[in-house]
């Protein structure tokens, strides 16, 4: 019969340790050779500063997701971001950001499919290379806003440092500019306005909390119009003209603010 036992690693004063159970002291003795193998990784979750505590159900789900990803893919840094953390029930999907050594788009799809198979829930998976991640946290307003609230599998501090990169900001402004000329669904206006508010707040070194960004957007228009564009409902031509005026003024502010940024 195989001689084995399962124990939890405990913290020692100098080294972490595993004790041989008393009942096995005659089977595994001093001088015997043993093999130690990881059976299940302990999954801890760490909240970003200011994020409200999640329900036990959501916490357990996140731990299960992290544990599944750790066992199947061996990732070291995983985040949950987005509305799943801030909305009680009205969240769209579960946004997972994984920091990896190298990005592979097929891998992203493989993880997505396995997660769906395992949990039967809607996920959005993004893999990002570690060095790009830290760079984007400096230059990308949308990435910075995304990480205003997160849950991670390890303690991590998002740096406050920001850098204005004109080309990156211009890349982000393409869609808002397009909406001045073409008519798309109303949700496109919602997303673009939110994008512009985020960029403007980033350039002005203001907080990028989702609640603050949404609040600023709400202040720009009547409640009924805010709800309509948020829910992608049909809107009248005069509302489109009104939204385009807001887009124009925000774009103007941003263009003025980025004049002195790096290329």
């Amino acid at each position, binding site marked *: 019969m195989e001689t084995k036992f399962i124990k939890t690693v405990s913290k020692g004063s100098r080294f972490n340790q595993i004790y041989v159970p008393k009942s096995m002291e005659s089977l595994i003795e001093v001088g015997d050779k043993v093999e130690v193998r990881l059976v299940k990784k302990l999954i801890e979750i760490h909240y970003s500063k200011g994020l409200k505590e999640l329900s036990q159900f959501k916490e357990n789900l996140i731990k299960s997701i992290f544990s599944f990803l750790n066992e199947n893919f061996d990732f070291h840094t995983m985040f949950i971001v987005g509305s799943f953390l801030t909305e009680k029930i009205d969240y769209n999907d579960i946004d997972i950001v994984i920091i990896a050594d190298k990005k592979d788009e097929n891998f992203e799809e493989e993880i997505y499919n396995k997660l769906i198979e395992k949990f039967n829930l809607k996920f959005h998976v*993004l893999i*990002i290379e570690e060095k*790009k*991640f830290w760079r*984007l946290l400096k230059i*990308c307003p*949308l*990435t910075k806003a995304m990480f205003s609230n997160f849950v991670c599998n390890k303690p991590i501090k998002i740096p406050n440092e920001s850098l204005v990169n*004109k*080309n*990156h900001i*211009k*890349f*982000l402004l*393409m*869609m808002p500019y*397009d909406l001045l*000329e*073409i*008519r*798309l*669904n109303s949700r*496109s206006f919602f997303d673009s306005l939110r994008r512009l508010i985020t960029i403007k707040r980033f350039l002005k070194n203001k907080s990028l909390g989702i609640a603050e960004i949404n609040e600023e957007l709400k202040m720009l228009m009547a409640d009924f119009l805010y709800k309509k564009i948020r829910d992608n409902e049909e809107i009248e031509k005069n509302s489109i003209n009104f939204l385009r005026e807001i887009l124009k003024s925000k774009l103007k502010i941003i263009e003025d603010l980025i004049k002195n940024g790096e290329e």
Partner: protein
Amino acid sequence: MGKNKDIHKLTNLMTKALRHKIGSIVNKDEFYANKYVKDAEVIMKEAEKVLLRQNWNDHDKGKIREQLRIKLRKELEQKDFLHNGKFEIMNEEIDKALKKFGLF
């Protein structure tokens, strides 16, 4: 709406959609590259509405292709923040989009 106006509208929308798509390909390093593919899809859906308004003959198809090529080149030239390589994939992306719309 007349055919010429629809060709103008269709090529305008396709130009913007393809610019987003090409941007997402050449600026692969962008964390949000996938998001721009979605932006392209939203605009392409709008273009599809215009596409379905008319029956396009070979002459129209040629006209659409030519207008799209000129407009997209101009658009890509203006967007200097899109990485190099955008012009290399331009024709390929035009062909793909036209095929998808049955205009090739």
